[in-house]
């Protein structure tokens, strides 16, 4: 299940935040925010995606650049909402 969630998020990041012909590899440890793949403004759309997909509400104080900085960090955040 965990792997499914990882793949789901990775696929979404690739599809939405990278150019079609981008050579950049994205895996569960790739920095997302600090690398600029997802900027701080776009983080809201990623948060909305997660909320919609997993039917949760992530409070603003938990939606920090650090919490979204890699797929692994996002997985850890989702665990707080019992998404595993």
């Amino acid at each position, binding site marked *: 299940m965990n792997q499914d969630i990882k793949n789901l998020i990775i696929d979404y990041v690739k599809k*939405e935040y990278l*150019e*079609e*012909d*981008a*050579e950049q590899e994205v895996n569960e440890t790739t*920095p997302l*925010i*600090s*690398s*600029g793949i*997802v*900027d*701080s*403004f*776009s983080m*809201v*759309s990623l948060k*909305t*995606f997660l*909320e*919609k997909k997993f039917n949760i509400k992530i409070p603003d104080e938990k939606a*920090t*650049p*650090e919490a979204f*900085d890699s797929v692994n960090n996002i997985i850890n955040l989702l665990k707080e909402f019992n998404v595993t």
Partner: protein
Amino acid sequence: MSNIDSYEERYSNFDWKISAEELEYGKNGMYNIGFYCSDRIVEKGFGDRTALIWQGFKGDVKEFTYNDIRIYSNVVAKFLIDKGVKSGDRVCIFMDRIPELYISFVGILKMGGITQPLFSAFGEEALFTRLEDAKTKAVITTKKHAGKIRRIRDRLPALEKVIIVDVEEQALKPGEISFNMEKSTPVENFEIEKVGPEVPSVLHYTSGTTGKPKGALHVHSSIIAQYITAKWVLDITSGDIYWCTADPGWVTGTSYGIIGPWACGVTQTVLDSGFNTEKWYQFIEKHKITVWYTAPTAIRLLMKDGTSAVQKYDLSCLRHLISVGEPLNAEGVIWSEQAFGKPFHDSYWQTETGSIVITNYPGMKVKPGSMGKPFPGITATVLDQKTFGPITTPGKVGLIALKPGWPSMFRAYWENKEMYDSKFKNGWYICGDRSSIDSEGYFWFVGRDDDVINTGGHLVGPFEIESALLEHEAVAESAAVGKPDAVNMEVVKAFVALKPGYEANADLELSIMNFIRKKLSPLAMPQEIEFVESLPKTRSGKIMRRLLRAKEWGQEIGDTSTLEND
């Protein structure tokens, strides 16, 4: 002692000639900004001084001396000429904050081109609007961003050259040119274009309430203001290590991320990385940054992580702190005193002013929350909103206005004289912001005088967002307004009425968000979408953004007598 020494004395007997004479501006008929940012520093004997320390997000570091900047900018200038770019052509720089961006900026100016930096996160429609308007002849970009240009190139007949700095020949698409600055043959001697002081230099696009973004055109003599404000406001001297966190896609990133610091001959640093508190503090500690120019949005994000995060690092190197982009609230000033032992000094200016016009000076009493006082050489006031006469009553709110004539004032909106002329009333340039002035002459920001949204220090035009929203298949009509945000001051909120057959739900909300993000930019992406049956309009059918905005800010909605429906 600070560079400005006594503000009052400087203000009372200032002349822009002081700056021009220090720069030796015009000596031997040379007015080109490119010369003053590179060759002049080398001629002064500082060719070996580090001009740029660049750090990528992975921690990789590159350093360039002033002589490197001189030679590489010559390489860029010669390359452009060899490819047929001519003096006066608009050359867009569209890339992340890599060394080629900063050096190309200087190189374009050296060959007489008009440099048009654009924010690399712009989506293809935002990019198209600005390239089409400027009839841009060449774009310098990277493979990461080339895709956006490829998708719009057919619609841009004036765009002759697409230059990509990080691809080999075999990876190019038809009509593209590969250019590797560092692997090119060094150009030791280049004849810098002898432009006059009033020749256009930089074209920065900025958003308004109505219509498409406008290109604010600056001229080479703007450096007279950018140099002296960098010296007196940022207080930079030759021994400083300076960090301006702004992206050169916006005016702060060029006036004070390239021109000002390099004209002063300081070592400047660039961190090409997204925001991260720990990384930022590590960067300051590692490079021993002494002068730091950043934005209130960043300061508020740092505040969230508290003073404990600061204490993990040795930041005693920091000597002077300045902020720009939006008003710095009093809490930010007070917090920085606790966290860094010194206050952030707020500075106010805009794309059109080209340089800082109202600010808090080193050595002057900082009133937390205040914008400060006008720069020497700048006559600033607040005007009555109806009569456009100066307000003399302390504390009374009016329109911030400046007497035209300072060197870095924009000279035109690109091919839009009507809009340019509309910015001047009764002999004053109207900034579009409201403030009051207290009995001691300090300005206090109140807000915008129009519907432009200031998000994270960047102006976003509601019209551009609404036009793009209408291109989404589900949107019948829309309105974009700024709503309060604890970090970014404002963020975009969109009110959307759907076409028949579409249902408001989270899927659609996400679809619209991503549509705008890709089409325009992440800044323009609505952070919230409220689906409505219809939008409030005047009897003539104009959407009343004012009403929607007032609701978001909890303000009185004012006169609604012209409202069509409620």
